């Protein structure tokens, strides 16, 4: 079942349960506003959710129920015992409707008859009420006092388009709930084609809506895509509401658009404000964060109370939805604490260098360190999400892609419960989609072709995730034709990527598909484009400090293996010194450290490798490669780092010890810098540079081949 549908089913179950609870209370004679309100909200929520999915049967049935409850709420119809029984039957019927809808089944004739009967009975109660209010129910669509005008400002997160949720169904739903008075697309964030990633959303919408709905009900519309939309809803009658929208969005052009599309008038924006927005674009981001908290539209006390009540009734689940910005903020603070604590520890250690015993201060500092690690892990854990939710979104793309090119593919997801940092999950999504498409397009053969080869007509693509030694592995495996070594090599030689004289291992040949400008497809197909992509995919993964490998057997299939770090924010590293600069090597890449003795150095001569326990270990002298100054300590050590199955010994001056560190970006000036992934501020305030080991190994190969 699709993830959204699952949420829908769960949500309906919850609502039906609330309804039943309230009805049972009513049966026991407690017919109060609260119970009636609870049922009304439940019916309304189900209607709303069903509308999102286009389950018209449910919408129609619940709509009738909702109308009746609206009248009851207004005191125009009185509840009696028969009615409660009727409602219980309606609840049972609604449950069946939901089940049928989710499983895309039809109700049987008997059920349909029951539905009609129940609907007629509900209508009879609606029509039984005093005549004058009947008119009111019918004029449903027109504005009356109880209608309220809401502004809905809609932006989308990167993955929205790939969720498969159609934006039109959201608009349709607004049309059902009330009236869309204005709808204006926001297009200034759409870049020119050159910079466009076509499946990322840049467009946004501003909507003026009028209806008998509360803010919560409108927000519920987006419940299924809550993680993928950025939503601001406010009552337009609130003072300064539009001004605060512009601030919250932090989009300098928004104000003009709002005025041009007649949502707001010039007068709604104070003059000082105009200046603010235009002159401080750079600070807009920060402001966006701050003001979100401070000027969230003030709700009246009464409203809040009501919301609280309904909240406590509605939310029986124990999960808490937290704005990810709040967690990021916490991580930033945590990073500072980790740095400060390292500083305390190094001070304490220096203080105690002389004495044999550890002081109480030292012990306290160490238990503090331990506790901080728990807190840190706890916070990091909050950012971890299961990859399954994201993986399930690929189903539709895979199936549709296959269908489009006449292939029959079974898509199997496993390890969906594997957890990964949310930002990593978000950023790996595009590369995965690309590779999945490739597998289907270039990997899986057409059904006839498969049968001719003695394979099952239906191809199979596996997407699996599992944790492995401190990192997460994602694999895409297909049982298609596999890679054609000869053709890749021929193509690579033709494009000048490799020389005909180069001796390449199978693995190295397969890896060529990640080289820029190399597409082995004989003819350009609709799906995976024209050789743009795999190099970008590789780059994207490496930007996440991950790696990608491919193995393949001709005729049998291919397997792409992606290795990703658990998190991006903090790493355990090893601090070393080269010349005047301190560098951090991620611990996950270190195999061991050895001292380079004078004898060994002499033995080595001008060779760039040493013999380590019978194996040749290539060496990379950091001082030479990075043009560092002479060593101050005159010592030399080798840190053996590895990535995948490649080992390199880095020659450094001094080993300073393990260091837990927060990765910070060095800034955009250093984007092209190979071998260094960021910086870290040490306890002393000094900055250490963090090695990007995979790139460093690449650098070694490049430098080596030049020589």
């Amino acid at each position, binding site marked *: 079942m699709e993830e959204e549908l699952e949420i829908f089913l769960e949500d309906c179950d919850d609502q039906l349960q609330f309804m039943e609870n309230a009805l049972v209370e009513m049966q026991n004679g407690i017919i109060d506003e609260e119970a009636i309100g609870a049922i009304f909200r439940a019916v309304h929520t189900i209607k709303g959710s069903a509308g999102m999915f286009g389950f018209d049967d449910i919408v129609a049935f619940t709509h009738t129920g909702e109308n009746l409850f609206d009248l009851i709420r207004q005191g125009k119809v009185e509840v009696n015992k028969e009615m409660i029984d009727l409602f219980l039957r309606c609840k049972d019927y609604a449950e069946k409707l939901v089940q049928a809808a989710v499983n895309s089944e039809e109700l049987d004739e008997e059920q349909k008859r029951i539905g009609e009967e129940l609907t007629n009975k509900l209508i009879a109660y609606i029509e039984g009420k005093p005549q004058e209010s009947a008119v009111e129910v019918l004029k449903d669509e027109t504005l009356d006092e109880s209608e309220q005008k809401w502004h809905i400002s809609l932006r989308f997160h990167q993955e929205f*388009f*790939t969720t498969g949720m*159609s*934006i*039109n169904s959201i*608009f349709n739903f607004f049309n059902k709930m009330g009236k869309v008075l204005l*709808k*204006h*697309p926001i*297009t200034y964030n*759409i*870049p*020119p*084609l*050159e910079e*466009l990633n*076509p*499946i990322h*959303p*840049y*467009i946004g*919408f501003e909507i003026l809506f009028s209806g008998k709905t509360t803010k919560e009900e409108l927000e519920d519309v987006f419940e299924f895509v809550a993680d993928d939309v950025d939503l601001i809803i406010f009552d337009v009658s609130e003072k300064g509401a539009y001004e605060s929208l512009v601030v919250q969005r932090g989009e300098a052009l928004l104000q003009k658009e709002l005025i041009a599309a007649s949502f707001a008038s010039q007068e709604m924006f104070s003059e000082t404000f105009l200046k603010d927005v235009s002159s401080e674009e750079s600070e807009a981001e920060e402001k966006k964060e701050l003001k979100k908290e401070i000027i969230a539209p003030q709700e009246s006390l009464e409203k809040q109370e009501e919301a609280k009540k309904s909240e406590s009734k509605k939310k029986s689940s124990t999960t808490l939805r937290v704005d990810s910005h709040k967690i990021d903020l916490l991580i930033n603070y945590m990073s500072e604490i980790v740095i400060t604590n390292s500083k305390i520890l190094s001070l304490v250690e220096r203080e105690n260098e002389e004495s044999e015993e550890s002081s109480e201060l030292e012990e306290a500092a160490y238990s503090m360190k331990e506790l901080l690690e728990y807190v840190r892990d706890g916070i990091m854990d909050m950012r971890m999400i299961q990859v399954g939710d994201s993986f399930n979104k690929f189903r539709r*793309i895979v199936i*549709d*892609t296959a269908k*489009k090119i006449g292939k029959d593919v079974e898509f199997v997801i496993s390890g969906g419960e594997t957890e990964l940092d949310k930002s990593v999950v978000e950023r790996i999504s595009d590369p995965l989609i690309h590779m999945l498409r490739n597998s289907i397009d270039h990997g899986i053969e057409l059904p006839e072709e498969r049968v001719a080869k003695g394979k099952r007509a239906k191809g199979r693509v596996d997407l699996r995730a599992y944790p492995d030694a401190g990192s997460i592995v994602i694999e895409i495996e297909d049982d298609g034709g596999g890679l054609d070594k000869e053709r890749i090599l021929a193509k690579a030689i033709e494009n000048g990527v490799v020389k005909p004289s180069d001796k390449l291992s199978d693995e190295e040949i397969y890896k060529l598909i990640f080289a820029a400008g190399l597409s082995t497809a004989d003819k350009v197909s*609709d*799906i995976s*484009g*024209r050789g*743009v992509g795999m190099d970008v995919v590789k780059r994207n993964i490496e930007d996440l400090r991950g790696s990608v490998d491919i193995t393949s057997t001709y005729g049998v299939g291919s397997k792409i293996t992606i290795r990703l770090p658990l998190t991006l924010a903090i790493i355990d590293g090893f601090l070393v010194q080269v010349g005047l600069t301190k560098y951090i090597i991620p611990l996950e890449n270190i195999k061991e450290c050895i001292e380079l003795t004078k004898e060994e150095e002499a033995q080595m001569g001008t060779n760039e490798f040493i013999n380590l326990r019978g194996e040749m270990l290539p060496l990379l002298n950091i001082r030479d490669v990075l043009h560092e100054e002479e060593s101050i300590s005159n010592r030399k050590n080798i840190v053996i780092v590895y990535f995948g199955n490649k080992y390199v010994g880095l020659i450094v001056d001094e080993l300073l010890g393990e260091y837990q560190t927060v990765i910070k970006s060095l800034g955009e000036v250093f984007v092209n810098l190979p071998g260094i992934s960021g910086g870290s501020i040490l306890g002393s305030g000094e900055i250490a540079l963090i090695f990007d080991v995979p790139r460093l190994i690449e650098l070694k190969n490049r430098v080596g081949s030049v020589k």
Partner: protein
Amino acid sequence: MTFEMVEEITIYEAEKLKELLLEKLDDAELLLDMAKIQKIDIVGIQLLISFIKSAEARDKRVEFKNVSESLYEQIAASSCENILGLG
């Protein structure tokens, strides 16, 4: 230019269409024949807006012809008909 190869401007075609449109940007006349297009989604609309922006940066105007009623409806559902110059 006509969209010979597709009948839909949707998320599934977006990557390829982007490449096609990028190439077409160099043409003197940017007239897009939409006769064959039956379906467009928000991804497609966004792509066309982006195309228009790139064209404007080159001082060129994009024109769409043979937009079917149904296609227009689909674009109007997102209120983007004016931006695409169809309003």
